[in-house]
């Protein structure tokens, strides 16, 4: 269970959250909705521990978000940034980098897992031989999403996961991710299809 209670956060005298609370059950799929600048990305970043200066309480799988628990909490999440222009040279690096960390070494995907997810995400395995500047934004987004899923973390924090995808692929990927039963997914999204398929829409 992930719980946000009485969250208050301001940026440059502007209140982004004012006594905001949210309870997310294990396996629940949450779509964060609302206009730009209303705090969707900020909420994901707060859960990932990128903004420590907030008031209120955030608990992830029973652990309160604080300096003592941040490492443990980050072990349970996989995060997809909104901006997928990550400064790595090759697609292989983009996909496999997280599996080089000690924590994820054992989750390095087998060739079967790799083929399955690439096929589900309509990706060609030959993409792994390319440079990141040779592939499209949509392909980058799918590569990062696939990598996030294969990390096999119980909580996915996804920032606009389908923003660069065309309709057909978008639906396929949305269905694939949101049907994962034990996986808790919190996604900031403008996409109606994703919102409708989620268990709960939280309007910020």
């Amino acid at each position, binding site marked *: 269970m992930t719980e946000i209670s009485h969250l208050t956060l301001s940026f440059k005298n502007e209140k982004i959250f004012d006594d905001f609370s949210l309870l997310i059950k294990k396996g629940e799929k949450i779509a964060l909705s609302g206009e730009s600048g209303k705090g969707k990305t900020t909420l994901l*970043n707060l859960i*990932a*521990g*990128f903004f*420590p200066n907030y008031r209120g309480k955030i608990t992830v799988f029973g652990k309160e978000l604080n*300096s003592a628990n*941040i*490492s443990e909490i*980050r*072990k349970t*999440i*996989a*995060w997809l*940034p909104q*901006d997928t*222009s*990550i*400064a*790595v040279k090759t697609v292989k690096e983009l996909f496999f*980098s*997280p599996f*080089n*960390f*000690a*924590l*994820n070494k054992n989750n390095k995907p087998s060739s079967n897992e790799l083929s399955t997810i690439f096929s589900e995400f309509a990706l060609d395995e030959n993409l792994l031989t390319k440079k990141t500047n040779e592939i499209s934004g949509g392909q980058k987004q799918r590569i990062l999403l696939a*990598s*996030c899923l294969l*990390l096999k*973390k119980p909580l996915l*924090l996804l920032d606009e996961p389908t923003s660069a995808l065309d309709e057909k692929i978008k639906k396929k990927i949305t269905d694939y991710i949101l049907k994962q039963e034990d996986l808790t997914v919190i996604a900031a999204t403008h996409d109606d299809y994703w919102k409708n398929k989620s268990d709960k829409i939280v309007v910020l």
Partner: protein
Amino acid sequence: MEKVIDINYFELFTGYALMLIPVFALWYYKTGLVKDTLIATARMTVQLLLVGLYLEYIFKLNNALINISWVVLMSIIASYTIIRRSGLKMKLFFIPVLLSGIISIAITDAYFLGFVVKLNNIFNARYFIPVTGMLLGNTIKNVVIAVDAFYKRIDEEENYYRWHLANGATKKEALLPFMRDALRVAFNPMIATTAIMGLISLPGMMTGQILGGSNPNIAVKYQIMLLITIFSSAVLNVVLTIFFSNRIAFDAFDNLKKGIFRK
């Protein structure tokens, strides 16, 4: 041995005419660096002339405590220069930078002067001060480039750093690509210069020694050792500076503090 030709003060003054070339180019391209260049040149002249006078005196005294104090003073000035040039906050970074400088110098000085040159007293002013001065002078540039590249890139590529951190990396793992790049940027030019040394460039110290009347063979041997010592000291200094400073540059959640940069 040929007699050494001294340069009198008038001749030294005429040598400054060469500065017209860089000053003109920097002015012509509106770099805004003319004032800095003139101040730097004036400072260099005054400092070296004073050091010349001071070293004569210090060599005569040859007191270990005075020599060490002199080196600590040089390290303080070097640390100040490094932080000023890197655009980081003096108050936060001074101690880690100074500490790294002193440790790296202590290790490489002790090895070179004590183990290689086999001085009975490694604090002998004639060796300890010029060698340490060369080490400090040559490592400043590398530390500035590395520290600047390291922190600025984490700040600019925050998304990249966070992507690592939020997908299972420890802070050390998340910082690794930034450390790797900082070392590459700082030491690639040094490696290139080292590789062509003697072919198309003669190092300053060796040239100075030869002009000062030394046997070229001795000058070459000292130069080789100094280049190795400088390289080793510079890498050690960069690694330690980043190691010590990253303890204060990140918050308890491993995020880079925004307040580390000077406005």
